[in-house]
């Protein structure tokens, strides 16, 4: 069976659980540094190591980050909550339990807007967002005989974002992940890097026949380290389910692992082997209370969000959806653009600069906007002098822009003046230039005066050469006629 055939008969039902590592300075329950890429087992205090007698102390930055996310997703923020212990053994989990939130997640409900399969905006409802701690890392491929454990990651704060089972395709799941990644980056709470594991995703999936009213048997898929692999795993699983149904076989409730080398999933753990996590309230931590004042305070310090900016650009600035999408796709680009438009009201031109000269410069040099040398205010003044008619667009993009790249502290107008790139609106000066050119070319002047209008181009070219292109073409045309009539 191929995917297309399956989708004619069945509707996939997909829910995602995303774990996003919060980039707080220290860990969730200790003062250890939260840093990716440190030398293994160096960001570890007795608490991270789970040594006897150690106790967790909650890092309030975790709460702040989680509330930021909850507000961005329009979730309900829980006012009084506690932490729970999730008990299971694993070598990289030093306490034998993970501190998480089971009964009282920090956020319930909420939504994330994505582009649906029909191209229209769709709201993906969230079930909950809760705070928890990461485990350490087991490294299986570094030593030929032993598994090595790095506990630097143990205790790093995470939020788990759980959707309702409302996604309908691999594409939607992909788009959802894109939006979540964009959101956490905008919020500055997570770098959203799936390859490095700072954002991880588990998929819950089942399929149901188009006329069915009940969900099919669901399975969970883990171990996908990119958004593409999430999409691939979903597509594989949809077909696998349909084939099992076609053969009259049962779909088992189980956890499966995605294998990127074969783009397929492999059964890992059946339902009867599932852990009983024996959640119970963490007695080492006190209740957490979130006040309305606290929520207000965070509301007031929220950064701009991609969806709000997108709507502003389309509805208020009359930019195309395409432009708006590209401008908001990356937080850095959006912030640069926001700064740009505080200094110019020519939104269309500002967008063109972003998507044109600036983006191609960044692409060519493999840079991000954060390392772009020219200040937004400088680009804005460049747009302003074009709009004022002082320079033309091609001078701006082809001549001034390269100079600014090398000398970002220069003012565009000064560069234009110094190089005589200012469009000359001074009629007297231009008249003098034209008169001189007529004098220097008596034969052509004579023919032109006698009505050979084909020579207009000849004179235009001479004038532009003389003024280095700074003459305003319209004014020049008028002046040519005026001067020739006076000869």
């Amino acid at each position, binding site marked *: 069976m191929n995917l297309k055939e399956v989708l004619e008969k069945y509707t996939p039902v997909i829910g995602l659980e995303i774990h996003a590592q919060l980039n707080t300075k220290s860990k969730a329950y200790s003062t250890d540094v939260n840093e990716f890429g440190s030398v293994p087992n160096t960001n570890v205090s*007795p608490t991270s*190591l*789970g*040594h*006897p*007698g*150690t*106790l*967790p*102390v*909650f890092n309030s930055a975790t709460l702040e980050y989680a509330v930021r996310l909850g507000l961005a997703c329009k979730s309900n923020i829980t006012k009084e909550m506690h932490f729970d*212990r999730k*008990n299971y*053994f694993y*070598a990289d989990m*030093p*306490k*034998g*339990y993970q501190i998480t939130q089971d009964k009282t997640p920090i956020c319930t409900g909420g939504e994330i807007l994505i582009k649906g399969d029909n191209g229209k905006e769709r709201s993906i409802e969230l079930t909950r967002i809760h705070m928890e701690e990461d485990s350490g890392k087991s490294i299986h491929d570094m030593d030929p005989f032993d*598994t090595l*454990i790095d506990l630097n990651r143990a205790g790093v704060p995470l939020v788990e974002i759980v959707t309702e089972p409302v996604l309908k395709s691999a594409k939607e799941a992909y788009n959802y992940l894109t939006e979540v990644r964009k959101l956490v980056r905008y919020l500055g709470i997570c770098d959203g890097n799936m390859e490095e594991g700072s954002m991880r995703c588990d998929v819950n999936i089942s399929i149901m026949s188009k006329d069915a009213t009940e969900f099919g048997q669901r399975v969970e898929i883990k171990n996908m380290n990119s958004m593409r692999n999430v999409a691939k795993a979903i597509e594989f699983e949809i077909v696998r389910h349909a084939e099992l149904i076609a053969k009259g076989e049962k779909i088992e409730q189980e956890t499966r692992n995605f294998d990127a080398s074969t783009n397929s999933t492999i059964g890992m753990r059946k339902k009867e082997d599932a852990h*009983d996590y*024996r959640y*119970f309230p963490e*007695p*080492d*931590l*006190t209740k957490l209370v979130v006040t309305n004042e606290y929520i207000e305070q965070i509301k007031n310090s929220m950064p701009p969000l991609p969806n709000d900016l997108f709507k502003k650009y389309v509805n208020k600035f009359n930019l195309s959806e395409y432009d708006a999408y590209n401008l908001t796709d990356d937080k850095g680009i959006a912030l640069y653009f926001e700064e740009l438009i505080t200094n110019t009201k020519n939104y269309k031109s500002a967008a063109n600069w972003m998507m044109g000269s600036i983006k191609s410069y960044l692409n060519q040099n493999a840079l991000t906007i954060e390392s772009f040398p020219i200040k937004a205010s400088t680009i804005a003044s460049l747009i302003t002098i074009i709009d004022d008619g002082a320079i033309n667009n091609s001078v701006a993009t082809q001549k001034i822009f390269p100079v600014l790249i090398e000398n970002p502290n220069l003012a565009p107008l000064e560069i234009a003046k110094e190089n005589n790139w200012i469009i000359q609106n001074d009629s007297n000066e231009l008249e003098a230039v034209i008169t001189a050119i007529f004098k220097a070319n008596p034969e052509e002047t004579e023919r032109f005066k006698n009505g050979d209008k084909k020579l207009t181009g000849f004179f235009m070219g001479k004038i532009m050469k003389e003024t280095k292109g700074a003459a305003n073409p319209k004014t020049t045309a008028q002046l040519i006629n005026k001067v020739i009539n006076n000869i």
Partner: protein
Amino acid sequence: MKNYTSFKSIKEDIAKGEISCEALTHGYIQNIKNSKTNSFLEIFETTALEQAKLIDVKITNKTAGKLAGMVIGIKDNICYKGHKVSGASKILEGFESIYSATVVEKLLAEDAIIIGRLNCDEFAMGGSNENSAYGNVLNPLDNTKVPGGSSGGSAAAVKEGLCIAALGSDTGGSIRQPASFCGLVGYKPTYGRVSRYGLLAYASSFDQIGPLTHNVEDAALITEVIAGIDAYDSTSSSEEVENYSQKLDNLQGEKLKIAYLTDCFSSDGLDTEIKTKTLAVIEGLKEKGHTVEGVDFPLLDYVVPNYYILTTAEASSNLSRYDGARYGYRSPKAVDLESTYKFSRTEGFGIEVKRRIMIGTFVLSAGYYDAYYTKGLKVRNIIKTKTEEIFKNYDFIILPTTPTTAFDIDGIKDPIAMYLQDIFTVHANLAGIPAISLPLGHHSNGMPFGVQIMAKSFDDAQLLAFSNEMLKRD
């Protein structure tokens, strides 16, 4: 060396130049070496003597802290940097702590001398010190009897004169019961009063560190040093710590209202002589002009089951970290992760600890959770509320510490019978309130027994002051 029974007399002798900290420490080390009670698991000889010499200099320079000259032992579930700590369990065999408990830091800051670690029931689970992986502790008053537990080593050592005071931990009576069996003052402060950072957790919402001493004054002094809020323990209280030792006469002449729990005195297991003698103490209080009234506490039958459901649940999780993977004992039979867990834990834990891990795992497991754990939390809340109601009308509650005096080694074999020994002590831990056992009872069988006083949360200063009055009367 003299047999000291108060820190005050030690301080006086030091002041008079009759003894130095170094000599005192040497003396105690000698006593420990001569002892047959198996109270100490290890003497911290080098560090204790170094500390003693240092403090002698400080005393000369008049810069010594308020515990200068106090030679103290710590229960083997309290961490001291660079020293072994095992919870009297094989599973922590050879383990050395890389940090110090907050109480240890505080004792050292006031120039106490920590002389060694004291035997106890494995991970503080037990009431007779028969659950130690390193052997029983003998009651110094009668070597055929248990010293009580779980802080059995702490009680025996102080009573025998192996140190002037000891720290224990009390989850359900583990300080008060051995104090009762050995004739000492055993004090469990209010939950949250003393930081638990560095205490090997048994049941986190019950555990509390406290002193075992000869008298209330020493208990008050040690408690005021080790109490207080701690950034490393979120459950430690920000309530101000009073100078308990300066307030011991605060209740002098005060007429107080004291409740005694009638249900305790009609409890089946209560030794008749302990009953009559405790009632006589109550009569004595009345004679002094206090109001003492019987109050019904029909929840008494539920305290022991409630305690064992909730503490084992927490313990099953708290003891998960001892898995043979990172530190402590690893079974030689371990070949992969699962066998590391299985064999290390099977061989490393003793039978009582395993029993409690299994009970706790059971009460938290899917399908049984609500019937046991959730219900247990509700019952605990009812017990708390009922207790608070009593304290609306009364300053203190008086009751026996233990239903019997120290029993024979191997005398109680049924674990349930052993659990029921805790009937009078678990109440304070369930309610989180402070409680003290005072050595007021002398049984005709020759053994001592304690009278227990409980107060409302953070009334530690009042409780100590009242205890001081009680002991003075005796």
